[in-house]
């Protein structure tokens, strides 16, 4: 985070003067000798200097995502997906990547606090003991626990124990981004809450009623993989995706037919769709509805209708009903018992707790994680009620908004610091193992809960292990335990599908026609709340990587804003960065405007999770707090919003200011029809390499190359942040992003352009193209930018003097420059750094080098045992993380390599091929699959 004074003030002047003196003196001083501190006893299985990988899981809202964590000499440095885990299959989303920085976050709380004073665990323990005696007597009257979604079998066992001991104690759940609607919908259809499991790989037609299954739903990483499997043009058939949504999401961007509607209108639209699918299609039906209905009809048992978490239960019930009618239940969608233990309704559960606190029925409240003071509904009155709890213990990673109002704060151990277990979206259980001892004296959640039950001795390890030993019984428990830790999944733990009765029919055509009347006033402006694509509900606000990761649909960093359509902006006579005042009910909020193409008209969207006031130095004070407008009965969208333009502006930091293709052949796209008619449709004359005066690069044993499939890329940004984690790329801070100095090595460009007819959002990940005739190389005066024998265009940091000519001469502008000292020197950053990658100082150019460190490591290990590298042995960070496997990397000399196959595709094209730079990185043209015989302009009209 580096902000410059406009002009030097006194202090920075002194700093600069001393610095310049140091600079002058620097030449004569000599580096000190480097000490090496040996282990007293070396951990077994460790080879000094070689990384180890441990299988564990990371959770959000209880839902687990299996990962492998790289540990270098005991320091966890990088998170990879766990190929053996069903939710991951080797990939992760952007948020999981950020968790490693959260672990090392120097701003995590380090001490137990009581009323703002540093206090000791002993004192808290004695307090709990004394309370314990009372609870013994009154059965835990007045003991309350507030938690989010919980999926840890061990923790649940502990809860049962607790409730046996104190039967009158109560456990409440609150997740700001919860799935109440999903469960309520299932109850409506099947009589009990169930978790739908979708099989996108089996669905040929998918209709999403505002369900962001590529970016938001539990299991979205897996869903993205399955979805993209069904979209390979080479298979000569692709699935077709219909999306109706308010705020554009990456799912909407991936749609073949997208319809923009206010969230409140989607119910009636769904009814129309149902009517058109089950009954006759009304003549006046929207083209979107007409063709979606037709497609659904034709794909009995191979179609899928799903509703988003933001949609009311009725819409979910409707989706279940449609799937029932279409014979999809058991084919493309199955149901399992809830993998995550949570409340029937999070909001009711919280309300109940508040009610109890108000009436003084709560004397001890334990808040396990979470931050209700920040993220509870504004009308829940949690803050006031909290005061009436005589003892309130906040247990969490950070000293945050909530802990400031609790009597006690206990630092929690990070998920990577403790033993635990967790359940994935499909019921698969993972035993979490610690990568490192708690850095800041954090306490495992299991030990915290054990303490409540009077057990102050058991460790998290013993608790978790004992639980599983109990489960395994006497069939080789030790082996199974070891296997679970090794593979990262508990064998046969995946939930069995429930055989549900048929979903209740919720509509007839009558209902449909009736519902048509329930469309809200079309002129009324509606406000929608969505989880932030990178900060979620605000829990990651202090993770700089996630703050600086551009949000896929807006390319904004470090802030949220009031998103609206161009039409509404014109109607309100506002432009980007104008500040408006939003009024919902009697509450108001000031927010800067940001126009988002394809946003539903007469609607605004706010991302949750910004505007934190006590997130830590990194996260505090960025964006506006949408929770200030979020009420219990309108958690996802609220009507009747008044917008007033204020006479002030607020600077937003975007990484991309221009979104039109300007008619340049940068992203090639076509429809499946185009592709079938001419597989070469993406080819252009200029693509063929012309004659060149420069010598061809010498071919060594390996020739590295990359292919990026734009038909698969969903623009989630996981590659960007995985690269950041792998290559020690520092964040630069908001002001530097505004200055245009972000450092991401692989960026995801977003274009709004007419491709394949309709107006579409196009994504294009752009790493270094590794040109064989690289323009950067011939202008570098000191040979800091050169080719290596295997065709990688390497940047030699220690040789670079920083003329920046290479960047000027790079037509792809993939080179990044350290205009200032961005790399932090503190202990945490040093410990987090990948030891295989140089940390760049200021004044040095840097860029993607195909994860050179991984290439070299692979080559050396192969050379060591005197063999050739196998295809797929070297995997770049972006390739490894990509949920849709859009990125393929490998050896072009190997005739059987995956990358050779990819480049062999007729869709292959080179970016700016006419410049004859001969990039080693090439693209596969985007192919979409709109319904045939549709006039694309209709899509335009619908948006």
């Amino acid at each position, binding site marked *: 985070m580096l902000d410059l004074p406009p002009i030097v003030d006194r202090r920075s002047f002194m700093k600069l003067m001393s610095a310049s003196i140091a600079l002058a003196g620097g030449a004569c001083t000599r580096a000190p000798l480097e*000490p090496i*501190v040996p282990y007293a006893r070396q951990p077994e299985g460790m080879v000094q200097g070689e990384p180890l990988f441990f299988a564990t899981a990371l959770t959000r809202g209880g839902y687990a995502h299996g990962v492998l964590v790289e540990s270098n000499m005991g320091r966890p440095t990088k998170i990879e997906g766990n190929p053996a885990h069903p939710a991951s299959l080797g990939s992760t989303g952007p948020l999981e990547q950020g968790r490693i920085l959260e672990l090392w976050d120097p701003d995590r709380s380090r001490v137990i606090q009581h009323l703002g004073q540093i206090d000791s665990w002993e004192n808290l323990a004695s307090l709990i003991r004394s309370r314990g005696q009372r609870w013994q007597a009154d059965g835990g009257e007045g003991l309350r626990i507030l938690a989010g979604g919980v999926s840890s079998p061990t923790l649940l066992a502990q809860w049962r124990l607790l409730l046996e001991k104190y039967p009158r104690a109560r456990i409440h759940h609150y997740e700001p981004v919860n799935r109440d609607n999903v469960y309520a919908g299932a109850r409506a259809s099947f009589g009990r809450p169930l978790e739908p499991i979708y099989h996108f790989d089996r669905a040929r037609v998918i209709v999403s009623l505002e369900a962001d299954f590529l970016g938001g739903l539990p299991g979205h990483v897996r869903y993205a993989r399955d979805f993209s499997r069904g979209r390979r043009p080479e298979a000569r058939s692709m699935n077709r995706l219909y999306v109706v949504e308010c705020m554009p999401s990456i799912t909407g961007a991936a749609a073949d037919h997208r319809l923009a509607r206010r969230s409140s209108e989607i119910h009636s639209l769904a009814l129309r769709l149902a009517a058109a699918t089950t009954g006759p299609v009304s003549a006046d039906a929207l083209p979107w509805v007409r063709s979606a209905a037709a497609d659904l009809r034709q794909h009995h048992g191979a179609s899928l209708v799903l509703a988003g978490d933001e949609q009311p239960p009725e819409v979910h019930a409707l989706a279940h009903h449609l799937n029932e009618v279409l014979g999809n239940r058991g084919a493309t969608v199955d149901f399992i018992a809830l993998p995550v233990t949570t409340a029937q309704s999070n909001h009711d559960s919280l309300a109940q707790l508040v009610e109890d606190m108000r009436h003084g029925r709560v004397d001890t409240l334990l808040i396990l994680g979470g931050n209700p003071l920040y993220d509870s509904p504004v009308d829940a009155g949690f803050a006031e009620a909290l005061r009436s709890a005589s003892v309130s213990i906040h247990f969490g990673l950070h000293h945050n908004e909530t802990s400031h109002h609790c009597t006690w704060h206990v630092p929690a151990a990070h998920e990577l610091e403790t033993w635990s277990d967790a359940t994935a979206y499909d019921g698969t259980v993972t035993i979490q193992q610690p990568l490192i001892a708690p850095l800041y004296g954090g306490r495992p959640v299991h030990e915290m809960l054990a303490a409540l039950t009077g057990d102050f001795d058991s460790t998290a390890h013993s608790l978790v292990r004992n639980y599983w030993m109990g489960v395994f019984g006497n069939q080789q428990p030790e082996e199974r335990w070891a296997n679970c830790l090794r593979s990262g999944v508990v064998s046969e733990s995946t939930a069995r599908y429930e055989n549900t009765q048929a979903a209740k029919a919720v509509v007839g055509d009558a209902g449909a026609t009736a519902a048509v009347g329930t469309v809200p006033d079309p002129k009324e402006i509606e406000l929608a709340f969505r989880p932030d694509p990178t900060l979620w509900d605000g829990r990651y606000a202090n993770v700089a990587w996630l703050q600086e990761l551009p949000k896929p649909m807006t390319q904004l960093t470090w802030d949220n804003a009031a998103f609206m359509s161009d039409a509404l902006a014109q109607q309100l006579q506002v432009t980007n960065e104008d500040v408006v005042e939003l009024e919902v009910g009697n509450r108001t909020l000031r927010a800067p405007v940001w126009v988002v193409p394809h946003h539903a008209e007469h609607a605004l969207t706010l991302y949750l999770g910004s505007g934190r006031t006590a997130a830590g130095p990194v996260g505090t004070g960025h964006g506006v707090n949408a929770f200030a407008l979020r009420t219990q009965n309108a958690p996802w969208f609220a009507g009747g919003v008044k917008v007033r333009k204020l006479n002030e502006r607020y600077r937003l930091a975007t990484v991309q200011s221009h979104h039109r293709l300007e008619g340049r052949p940068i992203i090639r796209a076509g429809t499946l029809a185009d592709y079938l008619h001419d597989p070469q449709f993406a080819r252009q004359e200029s693509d063929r390499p012309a004659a060149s005066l420069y010598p061809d690069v010498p071919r*060594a044993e390996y020739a590295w190359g990359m292919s990026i499939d734009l038909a698969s890329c969903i623009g989630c940004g996981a590659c960007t942040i995985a690269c950041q984690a792998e290559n020690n790329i520092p964040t630069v801070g908001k002001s530097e992003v505004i200055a245009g100095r972000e450092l991401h090595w692989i960026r995801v460009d977003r274009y709004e352009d007419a491709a394949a007819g309709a107006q579409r959002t196009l994504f294009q990940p752009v790493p270094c193209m590794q040109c064989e005739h690289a323009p950067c190389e011939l202008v570098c005066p000191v040979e800091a930018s050169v080719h290596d024998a295997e065709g990688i265009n390497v940047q*030699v940091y220690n040789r670079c003097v920083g003329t920046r000519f290479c960047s000027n001469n790079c037509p792809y502008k993939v080179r990044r420059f350290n205009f200032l000292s961005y790399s932090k020197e503190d202990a945490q950053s040093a410990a987090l750094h990948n030891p295989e990658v140089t940390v760049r100082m200021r004044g040095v150019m840097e860029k993607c080098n195909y994860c050179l460190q991984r*290439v070299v490591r692979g080559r050396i290990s192969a*050379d060591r045992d005197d063999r050739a590298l196998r295809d797929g042995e070297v995997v770049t960070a972006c390739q490894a993380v990509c949920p849709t496997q859009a990125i393929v990397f490998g050896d072009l000399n190997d005739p059987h390599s995956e990358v050779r196959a990819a480049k062999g595709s007729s869709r292959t094209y080179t970016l700016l091929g006419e410049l004859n730079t001969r990039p080693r990185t090439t693209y596969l043209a985007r192919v979409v699959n709109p319904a045939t015989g549709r006039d694309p302009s209709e899509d335009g009209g619908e948006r």
Partner: protein
Amino acid sequence: MKVGAIGAVIVVIAAILAWRRSVAPRPAVGAPVDQPVPFSHKHHAGDDGIDCRYCHTSVETSAFAGIPPLSTCMTCHSQLFTDAPLLAPLRASFAGQQTLAWQRVHDLPDFVYFDHSIHIAKGVGCSTCHGAVDTMPLTSRVASLHMQWCLDCHREPERYLRPKSQVFNMKWQAPPDQRVLGKKLRAIYHIHPSSVLTSCSTCHR
């Protein structure tokens, strides 16, 4: 006038000396480095004939040759010289009372990535770079470790290669027909062409 001229000359010379000093190898070639425990490679490797890999366990499998955990030292020194004052720091830190910090003798800049394992695997002997460590009471470096020194070998490895069996032989002398032998070994070990060995990316990332 004259004074000024002389002064100028002195300044220039001083500047040059200072610059030379700042780029000179550190620690200086041939200068023994003071260690918390005056560990003698001569005694252990030379006289006692302990194999390099007994302590530097990861030299064949990792970039880092490995610095022995104190437990390795204690395998013998829990029996031998158990109360030698010289070994006091060793015992103290093994007991966890203090940390023992060796001083690096062969220290490369942080932007240089040297890998021991591959050099061992391709027949580059310890003594080629580290000299006759088995004769050093206190270890000192024998090479400048300047880039040109590395390139000297990477351009023409055959000048230094030896049979794998001899890699850990401290007494190895290059035969008169070294180049012939070297060329043969280079072929046998499938050592990459110098175009690869001298690529910047071979050592810098």
